[in-house]
């Protein structure tokens, strides 16, 4: 089983990297892009026989305590059967 965890900056938190990427995108001529927000993506491999409830619980705790600084970031995740 695989967990895919997405960590994003909260709304209202300045994202200088995203801004720089947005400027680059704009200078390439893609004027439609109004904003870029940069985030992080993690894949966690879990044993196939782990129960989905348990997997959700484990991934949620890891995402909250390690992968995310909840002062500035939010996370969401999905589980995928191998």
């Amino acid at each position, binding site marked *: 089983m695989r967990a895919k965890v997405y960590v994003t900056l909260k709304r209202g938190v*300045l994202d*200088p*990297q995203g801004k*720089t990427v947005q400027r680059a995108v704009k200078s390439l001529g893609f004027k439609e892009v109004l904003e870029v927000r940069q985030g992080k993506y993690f894949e966690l491999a879990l044993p196939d026989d782990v129960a989905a409830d348990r997997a959700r619980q484990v991934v949620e705790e890891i995402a909250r305590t*390690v*992968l995310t*600084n909840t*002062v*500035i970031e939010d996370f969401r995740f999905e589980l995928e059967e191998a």
Partner: protein
Amino acid sequence: MKFGIVVFPGSNCDHDAYHVAKHVLGEEAVFLWHKDESLQGCDVVILPGGFSYGDYLRTGAIARFSPIMKSVGRFAADGGRVIGICNGFQILLEAGLLPGAMLKNERLKFVCRHVHLRVETCRTPFTGLCAPGEVLSIPVAHHDGNYFADAATLAELKAHDQIVFRYCTEAGLLRAEANPNGSAEHIAGICNRAGNVLGMMPHPERAAEAMLGSADGLKIFQSLLAAPAGAR
């Protein structure tokens, strides 16, 4: 007074802090390995600058789970003096011993130069020898020093006199051009409500001897010596 300097894998200002405590101040100093739990009876714990765990994931995010951080948390809760410098400040934030978080510098550049700091409060054991509003010249060297906290947290910091240092001009004025990283409220250093835990981005240990360009940082260490004893 006994200083304990925590050594994480990737710490690189640990020897500078040790040098100031041991040779400039002439006090007792020991290194504390991050995998140990004992603080060896130290009066002051320093979390030094550097790149603990390569700054992977987020600055300070992995170091906060080191065994020694449990002891540092208990020591701080009991009133023990803790000072986190640069990466040490980032670790204190990740550990929740101080509020807020660090973002990348506004201009996405590593900034390494002398800055001016205005002393905003002298109530802490780290600033007792400073005058209110005094301007100190101390260097910064970081990529993630853009302090962030939500509006409610910033209001709390102000209400409880927890902003210790602000970036300023040589004359002590708060100006955008004097803020090296875009940090909220020009914050360079904050303390917890009780005042016994200090986090600061500038490096006082690099400005503790006149031959290195400034001895202003020494005031922070000397203030600790002059302050009434804390917990141990």
